[in-house]
């Protein structure tokens, strides 16, 4: 269906007064019970983890039963020994998703914690299979005959990242879905701290029409403790012994920001700095107790002090997230969207490593990155459990695209559909949502080189999380303007969350 046809048919729908668009309906059996503690006032936090560069998720979750594994291995050109990208069967960490059979899939060997969480009695971890950027439900033959509207510049990093962040790929990216959520929920914050908070890029994701995101830095460690120079909130203070007369020295240039000026770039920078100072002071006071020039968190965060965690750049971001969640009452907020990220997944040429002088996938860039993800997600989830907020915090992943199943001898190239992880106490975990691309499925969705046609639009997957966050149907239609284009995708993720 081309764009014009789509517009005609949707106009027709509204003309006959169709029932209001209800994106997701959860069966009673899947609706869980979540009882927030009384003082939380329905607090919820959505933590969005972007894996920049295009995570090879076809190696993150792999068919484990022999015939399916063999088909997977063939699609990846065999084992590393032959320059293929198939992980060794024996290295995989098997899981048994509901409905797919015992040990039907395996996690990447670098992700033992994800294997454990998937099997955990609380079932906090779910997999969303083969999701990706689309503009309408698309079949292989539609793709091959160009008889369908497609996202612009498929397989380009920047365009696919933009799609995942904006969910408005057919328009210039002015705002992101995180920012539009923040617009909807702006009353949920005290008005001083924005709903959307970024720790690792995501400039587009967090931009709203109204909301301006607050960008903070990840926590870093010095001598085993949080380095005070990396405290989340900073205010520039003139510590030099200048003989200021009257008020604080920064008031001079703050007043300058407040004065009218015509140039829009100067206005922009002035407001950024004024906001930085004001929010910085507010957040700093809410979160830290200053003690002899040093800073300690007012609300302790139970955090692993393992050396690996302290050196994990993703864990450093999630530590800051946990600290802000711990301080939610002082910060006066009941809804927060966090953007964290890890880069380096564009493994065209460095997917293999060297184990005992042998080319191997049990080392190398992708292996290292998934280790970081595994450790950071586990550490963060454990912290939310310890803090008693695991039911109120959901972490979800995004990435530019999946990669080609076909190996290029050194790694993989840009693909399309990919698998994502969703983690938290409000998740109906232990399951795979959507159709996992097993052998029988592949010929129906492989557009070439092992690039997989997504069968769940990224819009649908992310909108389900926004619904959990509290957006109603009307708000979802505002935040995700293309959502109604994917009626048959919606049921696939309806049960992803318990509410």
């Amino acid at each position, binding site marked *: 269906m081309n764009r014009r046809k789509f517009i005609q048919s949707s106009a027709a729908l509204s003309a006959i007064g169709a029932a209001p668009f209800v994106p997701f309906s959860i069966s009673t059996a899947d609706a869980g019970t979540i009882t927030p503690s009384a003082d939380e006032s329905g607090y919820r936090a959505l933590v969005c983890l972007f894996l920049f560069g295009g995570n090879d998720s076809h190696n993150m979750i792999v068919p484990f039963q022999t015939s399916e594994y063999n088909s997977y291995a063939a699609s990846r050109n065999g084992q590393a020994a032959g320059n293929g990208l198939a992980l060794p069967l024996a290295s995989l960490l098997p899981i048994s998703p509901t409905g797919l059979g015992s040990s039907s899939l395996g996690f990447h060997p670098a992700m033992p914690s994800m294997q454990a969480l998937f099997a955990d009695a609380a079932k906090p971890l779910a997999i969303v299979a083969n999701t990706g950027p689309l503009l309408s439900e698309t079949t292989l033959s539609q793709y091959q005959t160009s008889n369908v509207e497609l996202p612009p510049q498929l397989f380009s990093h920047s365009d696919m990242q933009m799609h995942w962040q904006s969910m408005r790929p057919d328009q210039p990216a*002015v705002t992101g879905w995180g920012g539009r959520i923040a617009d909807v929920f702006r009353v949920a914050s005290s008005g001083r701290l924005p709903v959307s908070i970024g720790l690792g890029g995501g400039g587009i994701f967090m931009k709203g029409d109204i909301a*301006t995101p607050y960008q*903070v830095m990840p926590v870093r460690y010095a001598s085993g403790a949080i380095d005070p120079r990396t405290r989340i909130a900073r205010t*520039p203070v003139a510590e030099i012994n*200048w003989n200021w007369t009257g008020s604080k020295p920064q008031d001079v240039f703050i*007043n300058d920001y407040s004065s009218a000026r015509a140039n829009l770039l100067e206005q922009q920078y002035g407001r950024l700095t004024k906001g930085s100072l004001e929010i910085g002071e507010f957040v700093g006071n809410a979160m830290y107790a200053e003690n002899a020039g040093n800073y300690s968190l007012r609300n302790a965060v139970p955090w692993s002090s393992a050396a690996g965690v302290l050196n994990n750049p993703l864990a450093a971001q999630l530590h800051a997230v946990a600290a802000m969640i711990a301080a939610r009452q002082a910060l006066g907020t009941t809804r927060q969207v966090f953007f964290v990220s890890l880069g380096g997944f564009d493994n065209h040429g460095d997917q293999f490593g060297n184990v005992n002088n042998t080319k191997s996938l049990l080392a190398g860039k992708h292996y290292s990155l998934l280790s970081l993800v595994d450790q950071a997600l586990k550490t963060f989830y454990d912290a939310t459990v310890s803090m008693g907020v695991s039911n109120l915090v959901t972490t979800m992943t995004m990435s530019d695209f999946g990669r080609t199943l076909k190996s*290029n001898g050194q790694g993989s190239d840009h693909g399309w559909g990919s698998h994502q992880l969703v983690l938290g106490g409000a998740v109906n975990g232990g399951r795979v949502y959507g159709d996992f691309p097993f052998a029988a499925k592949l010929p129906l969705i492989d557009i070439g080189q092992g690039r997989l046609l997504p069968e769940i639009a990224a819009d649908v997957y992310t909108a389900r999380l926004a619904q959990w966050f509290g957006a109603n149907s009307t708000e979802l239609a505002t935040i995700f303007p293309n959502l109604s284009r994917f009626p048959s995708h919606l049921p696939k993720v309806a049960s992803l969350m318990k509410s």
Partner: protein
Amino acid sequence: MTRFALGMRGPTLYERVGSVAGVANSESNVGTTLARLDVDKDGLFTTIDATVLARYMAGFRNAALVRGLSIENNVAPPNAASITSYIEGGCVLSTPSFTAKQAAARLLQQGTWGASNAEITAAANRTPNEWITDQFTKSRSLYTPYAEALIAQNKVSGNPRCDQLDSGCPWAVHGPMFYKMALEGQDQLRQRVTNALLQTLVVSIGNNVLLDSGTGVASYLDTISKRVFEDPSAEVGVDGVSRTTGSFRKLLRDITLHPAMGVYLDMLGSSFEVPNENFARELLQLFSIGTVMLNNDGTAKLDGAGKTIPTYDEPAVQGFSKAFTGWHFANQPMSTEPWRFYWPIARWTEPMTPWTGRRCPQDGRWPQGTTDATCPAGSPTGCWCKVTGTHAALSYPPPHNTDSKSLLQYANAPFATLPAGQSPQQDLEQAIDNVFNHPNVGPFIVRQLIQRMVTSNPTPAYVNDIANVFNNNGSNQRGDIKSVVRAILLHSEARSATAAAQISFGKLREPIIKFLQLHRAFGATASSGYYDIWDIGGVENVGQSPLKAPSVFNYYHPDFAPSGAMSYGASPLQGPEFEIASASSVAGFADFMKWGITGGFNRGRTNGDHIAPNHAPYLSGATPLADNPTALVNDLDLLLTANNLKPGFKANLIAMAGGITRSDINEQRQQRLYAVLWQIVQSADYAIQR
């Protein structure tokens, strides 16, 4: 003077004329007074100036002074009369007006890493065109030799900067190299343009292989800076074919074959079986044409349905990927040492060359170079790769893909299809011809150059004018970067105060440029010549690290449009540099600056490494500026912002400085200077370059 104008230096300058002892003096005297001796005011001291001066000394005056020279028929100054009166006045440069200095300060903000008061005054005595012409002649700062010298020094036992004598700490040379050239080099415009192009044609020491190479990125910088001011000329390509082109085509080819790019985007080692698409895709998307068809003014073309039109599709990416197969570090001895595929001799300063040797048989093991007689012949799985012996029979095709390739299809496109069976060199040069001649290249590249130097939101008319120069430099040459740079800086939108007063004009200064400007404005250099600055890219520091873009998408996207004041109206304003400006970076930069301001940056291991600013005019002498708050604020306003501080803010600064009193007058002067500097550096009026 005539000899100097002809380019002679050293003893030849003085030979048979005077004493050897006078050589150094005469060279430096002429060199430092070139602006005064430029009597025809064309921005250069040439044989014409020398001839005029020699004629004057011989007694010629007025018309006879210039007869037969190219200035003879000038009606506006300079002409014979004005030159005569200028010489008779003692070749004294006039004290430029405040307006002239403000205009010069603006030009230098756009075309240098930052300028001192003396440099602003000198530029104010020339037209912008003269200043640009003069910059074209400045000798080129070379990154690679300095990086190599540093690594060599680091290998000497007892050196203070590296504890790994075998390697010489190649990963540690990038900061010292970059800052040395930026703070000491005279070729400021060339460096600024080189850096602007590096931010489009990105490689980065964020890649560990390039970081550890020490010279990979250095050589890449030299590759760009060599081309940027090169006039169009004939050149024999790697395919043996001579082409006469502008410098941008040569640059596109050079970066394609540069091993730093080869490693960064995986073209190095890409082979026929599965051509790596990484470089091919980014060459199209980021380095040349972008993803949508553009009008010559940089706006997107729309089809009948009002939608943008893609510039290329996946088959074109695959066509370029195949065309770029079969290259490796220069001159790898592949056929005799096949393990060089994995452990190459990394020649970072030489262009890649085709490799013709056999790839190691794909037995999945790291190849080794010894014979193993026990290895079963013909088995690719039981053996390590062998150099000699029976495994020579395991032949693999050469790594270059010799299929026919479909490239970019557009009107009059050269080499829209590459025929089968061509050499890697033929495919490569022809693929570059195909992309270089695409009509998008001009608007796509010049708009980003304008954004890096002048303004984030150039009008379509500005882009159109400069793209016209890119398309044809006036001599029917395409891609002449030198002409493009001159046109960008001389355009009325860059120069006129009216354009600068538009509410959408200007750009956010990059953190690196703020950092460099605050050194250069006060002539801060390290007396040791060693700039001990490593990575200050954290948001608690400067917030951007040179040569270390986080990805091939640079530090920021050229079309990033922040929400807020700039998103008013139908079309939001773009502000690429705002993508790395956050609450944390603003506060971190403010904290970081306060100590740099007070004593110069990086106090280093030794006093010689201290990058000390010269604050003398403010603190000492007969009339220290710090004793006069109004003069102090006015001076710093011109020096740092080209007079962009708003009157109310200046009044507050003057009052604040006057309120700082100390019994020790020296302490009072110092603290007034530091306080005013600290305030200006935080201000929006400083942050936005207009």
